């Protein structure tokens, strides 16, 4: 550089105000939403607890058993009242055994599905947490890119100011040689004659 002594560019007052606004927002996020997010994280992890599986499977078993027991009751009433069957009869026992086997299969499948769904929900919750975090990461990265761009803008402004203050370059501007030099420093647009 050749003796140019321009002062540093001043930051707009609104920029600090914007930063303060963002800071207050983040403070509130930390006070209000971070504890809620932490609760969500802990609840999601608890989804994988053995007790949670026991509860889910137990509830499924109760519901499925209730449905099948109602069906068995209907069968017994129909068999005894309408068909005149007796529980000691082979026809009754055969049909009853088949329905009980269906009950065992149905209840087992319901319990299995409840357990697998519990695992699915756990992973789904963790995926949601990852997405929450990725939003944060993207914000932070955007911020870093913004800072880098601002830094570049400042450097560019400073460079132009420095070269603009150079009388040698200013004198050259407007001549063929000067246009070449000006182009080389990007001065033809801002400071060229």
């Amino acid at each position, binding site marked *: 550089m050749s003796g140019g002594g321009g*002062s540093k560019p*001043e*930051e*707009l*007052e609104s*920029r*600090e*105000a*914007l*930063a*303060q606004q*963002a*800071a207050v927002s*983040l*403070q509130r996020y*930390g*006070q209000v939403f*971070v504890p809620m997010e932490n609760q969500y*994280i802990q609840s999601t*992890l608890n989804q*994988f607890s*053995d007790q949670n599986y026991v509860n889910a*499977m137990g509830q499924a*078993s109760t519901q499925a058993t209730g449905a099948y027991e109602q069906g068995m009751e209907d069968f017994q009433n129909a068999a005894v009242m309408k068909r005149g069957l007796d529980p*000691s009869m082979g026809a009754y*026992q055969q049909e*009853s*055994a*088949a329905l*009980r*086997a*269906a009950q*065992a*299969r149905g*209840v*087992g*499948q319901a*319990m*299995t599905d409840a*357990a*697998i769904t519990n*695992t*699915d929900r756990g*992973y789904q919750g*963790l*995926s949601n*947490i*990852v997405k929450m*975090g*990725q939003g*944060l*990461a*993207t914000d*932070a*990265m*955007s*911020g870093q*890119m913004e*800072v880098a*761009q601002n830094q570049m803008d400042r450097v560019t402004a400073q460079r132009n100011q420095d070269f603009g203050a150079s009388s040698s370059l200013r004198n050259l501007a407007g001549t063929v040689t000067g246009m070449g030099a000006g182009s080389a420093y990007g001065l033809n647009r801002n400071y060229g004659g």
Partner: protein
Amino acid sequence: MFGSFLDRLQQSGNVNFQQVQDFYFPNPNDAYRGVPTYSGGMGNPYASINPNRYSGLRPEDNPGDKLFADLIRAQTQDYLTRFAPIENFLASEITATGTKALEGDLQRTRDAVAQSGLNVQGTMNRDAARYGVDAQTLDQNTMTSTLVGGLNATRMRDSDRRLALLGGMGAITAKAQTVGR
């Protein structure tokens, strides 16, 4: 309950004893893992932010940029502290064929079918006692096919789950690549 089925399976020569053993009775330590250990923090990462920290600086010292930089650092730290451990855990759960939850789900499927069979057998015994007839035995073929079908369904669900996780985890790459464009 399934002894005869297993014997026939092994006698068929298509699978060896260890394969049958691993499929139906895997290591129980892999099955019941409990709540995953969370290594992340639970504090408030934004507690130390002070909006007026740089208010005394001159405009040419860029107080706004400095404050923005503080905010970005706090966000990054928050991400690393609370969310990155979850990402790491989720990524580590994915296996070549499914997820690490498979063993647990398979064990619970076995438990569910066996428990259901026992409960219904108990009901059948009580019914028989009430009517004064001989108790019947629950159809073992039905229970065996229920178990095999349940185990197959469990594996398929786990495979689907793996794909869903792989799809969900990929979003950050695309986002990170487009930042600043």
